[in-house]
């Protein structure tokens, strides 16, 4: 990849400068009288003195104290995150299967299978890129403001993401074992189940745990439906300038994230290394079977998750509130009306099909001009700006992450990198913990918080937003990428160490090229979420999809929001195609 793929690096550079040209190169825009550090100092003073009691003086004296509320929020968040992820994983597996190409029979009618794969992939893109708000309103309409709506509103886009990432992880696996199965007359599906799936499992477990972590952090959808999560709590405290409270909640969140990451690490380690037999075995089949190495940790772990998920479903507030019949269809009809473009929307929000058809026939000649208008202004400009901002952000994030991760990779950052004895210095280990700590911190702190601080530091322009997105994504890419590298088999990179090379060299020369395809996969995945990131991109009146979505959200112009969302989805689909093309090329295939 290195020699022939230099253009990849060059292309990234060129694209970045195009973004700079688009967004303007004035990174810092201060006006007289500005005190750039003031807000930052105010914010970080909260880090040293996290608050244990409410800072909100308007609360009645007998109110539930802050810490107990925070604890409730945390438990609630964990519960709904568990439910959402456990709903999304099976869906992700199923759709991911159809979106991958590993189950295709070789030499088969490939075109036919492409005809399955691409519609699935595109609908996955839609699931991921349709704005959270629209899912939230949809489920609010369908199920009321019960917690289950929140879970579904979270689970649906998660299914899309999981399916995409699962399918691509599967596509990246070594195909030789699968070929053996198909050569023996097995079907593609069998080859998939028996070889690709077990090989991809460690990567998929990593990613699922990461998704669970995302669910913990994601407050927007849950909050909209009225589930008070720890993310919402941070958001609220921050809005009110209660920085002590913000930091207390952040510390709690960070601790939780570290806990999950540690658990994930242990699980993956066990899955990668296997377990040596501890008893010597006899000679018969049944004796061998009894003495077979079994990993108690993995089993206990698996069972525990099952139990915890079951508890999440069954204990606590009821998930669904009953709804009177007919009410649901009314609500859905209203939702549909909201999404219907203005010129073809029926008069009444509770229209029946005939009225809708009538509205359509009356307004259909207005529909295209409506679209054209929105596209002319501001769609076109917003699309280009969003592209420029998201691309600039993800490139900055990727550059930072790629420089930092070699020191953070657990399999390298210790005394025995890749299982080989190395110097006894404790430095790499400490460094590794620091880097991973940095990743946890950057991703646990929500991006709007960075955006606010950076706008203070740099003055209002698109760049603080870009940097805020970049910072948040450094932590996420850092985590995802380190785990990709940790899940690589050790034989190849360890040859570099064997000839006296160092940790960094084995990263640069073996682990990086081996992982490049998976890096690209996650790079595009994160870029996608930058495109979607309306909360941050809407913070300043920079003409971008996020800005118009957040404005129209307050004016309740959902048809416009849908339009902007679909523009974003277009970007996402294009990104999907590009990612697919790149990874095929780098894998050495020419399709």
């Amino acid at each position: 990849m290195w020699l022939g793929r230099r253009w990849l690096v060059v292309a990234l550079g060129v694209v970045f400068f195009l973004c700079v040209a688009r967004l303007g190169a004035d990174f810092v825009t201060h006006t007289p009288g500005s005190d750039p550090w003031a807000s930052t100092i105010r914010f970080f003073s909260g880090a040293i003195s996290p608050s244990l009691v409410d800072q909100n003086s308007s609360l009645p004296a007998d109110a539930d104290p802050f810490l107990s509320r925070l604890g409730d929020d945390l438990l609630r968040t964990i519960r709904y995150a568990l439910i959402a992820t456990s709903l999304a994983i099976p869906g992700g597996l199923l759709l991911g299967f159809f979106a991958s190409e590993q189950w295709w029979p070789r030499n088969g009618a490939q075109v036919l299978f492409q005809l399955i794969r691409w519609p699935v992939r595109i609908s996955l893109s839609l699931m991921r890129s349709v704005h959270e708000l629209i899912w939230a309103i949809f489920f609010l309409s369908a199920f009321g403001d019960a917690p289950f709506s929140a879970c579904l509103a979270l689970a649906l886009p998660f299914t899309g993401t999981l399916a995409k990432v699962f399918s691509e992880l599967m596509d990246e696996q070594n195909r030789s074992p699968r070929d053996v199965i198909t050569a023996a007359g097995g079907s593609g599906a069998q080859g998939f189940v028996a070889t690709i799936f077990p090989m991809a499992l460690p990567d998929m477990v990593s990613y699922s745990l990461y998704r669970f972590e995302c669910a913990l952090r994601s407050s927007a959808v849950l909050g909209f439906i009225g589930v008070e999560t720890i993310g919402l709590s941070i958001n609220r405290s921050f809005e009110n300038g209660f920085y002590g409270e913000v930091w207390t909640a952040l510390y709690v969140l960070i601790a939780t994230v570290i806990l999950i990451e540690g658990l994930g690490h242990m699980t993956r380690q066990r899955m990668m290394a296997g377990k040596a037999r501890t008893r010597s075995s006899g000679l018969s089949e049944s004796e061998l079977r009894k003495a077979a190495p079994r990993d108690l940790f993995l089993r206990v772990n698996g069972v525990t998750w099952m139990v915890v998920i079951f508890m999440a479903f069954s204990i606590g507030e009821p998930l669904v509130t009953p709804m009177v019949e007919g009410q649901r269809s009314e609500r859905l009809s209203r939702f549909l009306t909201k999404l219907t473009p203005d010129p073809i929307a029926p008069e009444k929000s509770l229209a029946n099909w005939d009225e809708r058809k009538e509205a359509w026939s009356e307004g259909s000649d207005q529909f295209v001009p409506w679209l054209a208008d929105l596209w002319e202004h501001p769609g076109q400009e917003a699309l280009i700006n969003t592209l420029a901002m998201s691309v600039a952000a993800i490139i900055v994030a990727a550059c930072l992450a790629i420089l930092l991760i070699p020191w953070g990779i657990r399999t390298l950052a210790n005394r025995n990198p890749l299982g080989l004895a190395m110097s006894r210095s404790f430095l790499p280990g400490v460094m590794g913990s620091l880097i991973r700590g940095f990743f946890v911190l950057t991703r646990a702190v929500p991006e709007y918080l960075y955006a606010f601080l950076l706008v203070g530091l740099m003055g209002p322009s698109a760049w603080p937003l870009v940097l805020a997105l970049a910072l948040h994504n450094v932590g996420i890419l850092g985590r995802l990428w380190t785990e990709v590298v940790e899940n690589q088999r050790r034989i190849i990179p360890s040859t570099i160490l064997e000839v006296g090379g160092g940790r960094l060299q084995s990263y640069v020369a073996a682990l990086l090229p081996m992982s490049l395809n998976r890096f690209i996969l996650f790079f595009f995945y994160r870029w996608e979420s930058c495109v979607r990131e309306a909360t941050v991109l809407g913070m300043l009146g920079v003409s971008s999809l996020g800005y118009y979505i957040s404005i129209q959200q307050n004016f309740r112009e959902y048809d416009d929001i849908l339009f902007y969302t679909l523009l974003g989805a277009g970007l996402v689909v294009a990104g999907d195609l590009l990612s697919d093309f790149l990874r095929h090329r780098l894998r050495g295939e020419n399709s």
Partner: protein
Amino acid sequence: FGSIAIAATALTLSSCGDKERKGEASDETAVLRFSAIPDENTTGQAARFKPVADYLAKALDVKVEFVPSATYGASVEKFENGDIHLAWFGGVSGEQARQAVEGAEALAAGKKDLAFKSYFVANVATGLTRSEEFPTAIANMTFTYGSSGSTSGCVMPSHFIMEKTGKTPMEFFQKKPIGFSGAHDKTALQVQDGTFQAGVLSYGKYESMVKEGTIDPAKCVVVWETPPFADYNFTAHPALEKSFGEGFVAKLQKALLDCKDPAALKALGRDELVKVTNETFIPVAKVMEKVKFD
């Protein structure tokens, strides 16, 4: 189609559940669920509004439950769907809610809400001082609103900009980008720190911040005060009559107007509630149609 398929399955699954529960739903004693927009002091929203819920429960002898709302939009959305039946809205969100639900009625507002106003503020370094005239000089300064859905932090100020200058905010402000700080106190602090040279926020929040000492009126100067407009209000859903019986909305309105409960009034940040009707907010409705941000 994948998403649609999943959604459809979820729907069919749950509607099966519905039919079973159909009988039960009406048996249950009805609960008055109410909510409020997250405007200021939003942490512990449920705790903050508990005294109001308690007061209403006592005064009306029904079960009252407060439902938190994470955004302005969420509260309107739930009102429209009938998930909540009463809400403490802002001027704009209340109007949206009433437009969405036929028969919804504005019942009561704080006395000061009938003559609410916004302050245009500027950093002292701009050299601007308080004046009676609209400060057209801010056109060449960096400027921030609060939340774009806020009546006093965005919609009404924009209306006055349009009225005074004949230009939309996007045309009027020369320095881009315009900020949307998200909250009134953020606006004040950002102007005081000089992140933005000027901004606009609710007068109440500005004054309370000056009183607390978080804002120095010498650094963050009020340069112009908008004419008064109607803002916060309690709005009731017509479904209340169905679940609690004919005339319940009137009872509710009376309970609100008669409220002397200090804890409940403190939660709302008002001294007393006065009667309003949907007509009170016609000016706001007109403004909403005019103000555009693209």
